[in-house]
């Protein structure tokens, strides 16, 4: 187990919900932020507030340096080759939209195919669908197996000389499935397709090395890795970024502006128009320091201990069916209860102070594939405990007692 003192970094875990101490099992939706990240952002707003890039004065220069420092921390964290390959965006959704708009519109040709998978959430479906409508590409969808694993053979068969880009999730938010991303990158790159990985559920849970993966793009959000909301990262290979046009235009991303013509700055500034989420970027830097001190491997082991325990305990419950039993999983467990709708289950758990997600998890096509309208999803993080899983199990029994 991780040091139990870790919970002290997260005062929100002492929150009382419906007369019970909060049991927070919705870490896939968002994670809690450690005190040191909150304090770092408060310190910035209290004593260091200034914008970046503009000021000749000290505070602005310092703010610029803090943001640059975060860029370097992210670079090291995911092992990018250069810090200019790290673009700050709002989050994973914006990162994928940026690639669809800028890379998709200008690098993909009409008639080319984009391959996604059945387990994608809406953020990794809809931007590609829109690109296909606007640009005359075709969206292909690789199937999954009933156990929630990607059908890798079918996925490979879906790649041909006409495939321009493949986009897939590193870890499924709805099922917890961890995809064989290295094998997938190797295969797609050998076939000449560009690769985008949605890493929203992977970063901070699994070690990510973008150079080893050799993916072209990797997207993730700070708020799902114990950082603040409002900032995320798009990693892109520098050579690609330099040939991509801006996604949005305005200040901070230009080289020279006249009323006749504008030339654009080099990456990453080209993709970061306007004033960025400065405090959030600084908070993200502090988050990475925090994660590095704990160690991603330690987090991985702790979360997998919780996952394995939860699997064993939930399987003992009569009338409960786990949705998604891939061999390789992250600490996310989706399930349904016979004859009990997930929303009723969610409400009853809430009255016991247990926060889970119920619904389609922004993955409606996946729910349709699995023939369930919705699931109950518990997802674990570094601060969760075995006792909290016991509380979940007791909560599920209470649901059955009330509803059956």
């Amino acid at each position, binding site marked *: 187990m991780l040091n139990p003192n870790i919970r002290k970094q997260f005062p929100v875990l002492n929150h009382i919900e419906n007369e019970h101490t909060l049991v927070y099992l919705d870490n896939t939706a968002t994670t809690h932020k450690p005190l040191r990240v909150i304090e770092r952002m408060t310190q910035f707003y209290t004593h260091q507030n200034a914008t970046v890039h503009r000021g000749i004065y000290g505070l602005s220069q310092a703010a610029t340096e803090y943001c640059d420092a975060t860029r370097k921390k992210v670079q090291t964290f995911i092992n990018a080759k250069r810090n200019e390959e790290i673009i700050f965006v709002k989050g994973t959704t914006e990162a994928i939209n940026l690639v669809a708009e800028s890379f998709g519109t200008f690098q993909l040709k009409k008639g080319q195919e984009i391959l996604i998978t059945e387990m994608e959430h809406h953020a990794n479906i809809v931007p590609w669908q829109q690109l296909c409508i606007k640009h005359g590409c075709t969206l292909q969808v690789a199937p999954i197996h009933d156990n929630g694993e990607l059908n890798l053979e079918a996925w490979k068969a879906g790649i041909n000389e006409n495939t321009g880009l493949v986009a897939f999730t590193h870890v499924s938010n709805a099922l917890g499935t961890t995809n064989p991303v290295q094998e997938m990158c190797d295969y797609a790159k050998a076939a000449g397709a560009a690769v985008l990985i949605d890493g929203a559920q992977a970063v901070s849970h699994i070690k990510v090395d973008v150079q080893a993966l050799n993916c072209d793009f990797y997207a993730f959000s700070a708020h799902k890795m114990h950082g603040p909301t409002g900032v995320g990262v798009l990693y892109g290979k520098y050579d690609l970024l330099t040939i991509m046009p801006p996604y949005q235009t305005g200040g901070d991303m230009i080289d020279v502006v006249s009323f006749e013509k504008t030339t654009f700055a080099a990456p990453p500034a080209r993709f970061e128009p306007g004033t960025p989420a400065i405090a959030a970027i600084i908070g993200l830097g502090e988050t990475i320091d925090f994660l590095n001190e704990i160690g991603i491997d330690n987090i991985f082991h702790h979360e997998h201990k919780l996952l394995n325990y939860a699997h064993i305990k939930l399987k003992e419950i009569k009338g409960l069916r786990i949705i998604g039993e891939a061999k390789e999983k992250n600490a996310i467990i989706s399930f349904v209860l016979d004859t009990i709708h*997930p*929303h*009723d289950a969610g409400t009853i758990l809430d009255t016991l102070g247990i926060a889970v997600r119920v*619904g389609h998890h922004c993955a409606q096509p996946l729910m349709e594939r699995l023939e369930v*309208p919705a699931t109950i999803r518990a997802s674990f993080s570094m601060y969760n405990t075995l006792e909290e899983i016991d509380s979940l199990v007791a909560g599920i029994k209470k649901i059955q007692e*009330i*509803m059956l």
Partner: protein
Amino acid sequence: MSRIQRLYEDMILEHNKKPRNFCVMENHSHSSHGKNPLCGDDYYVYINCSESHIDNVSFIGQGCAISKSSGSLMTEMLKGLSIQEALALKDSFLDMVSTDISPEKKKSLGNLKVFEGVKEFPARVKCAALVWRALEDALGTQHGVACTE
């Protein structure tokens, strides 16, 4: 009674398990599709009116216990009412699940009073209201679709 017991009254649980008038009605004069895409609750409501009275009501679809039992009890209450009476009942019901209402109004709701506990769960009001908004659409606005999210 705890909050959760006030929400899941026995009558609600019983109607959830055995919803009444839970079928497609081929020969209907009015219908609508009530759908909450975020949570997935999804029902069709069918009404057959002769002159100005409701002869028959049914519903079919899927969703949580609150939405399904709301549909079931609604179909039981509507038969024989005029369209105006049905719409007034709908208004009273929607008032009851969101605010405090007068004892007289509550009395007029009959068995639907079991949904009073929904008021304590703001996130679930949309579940109880869905079939009623579909009813309102079927009898009034006739967009063919209703949503409470």
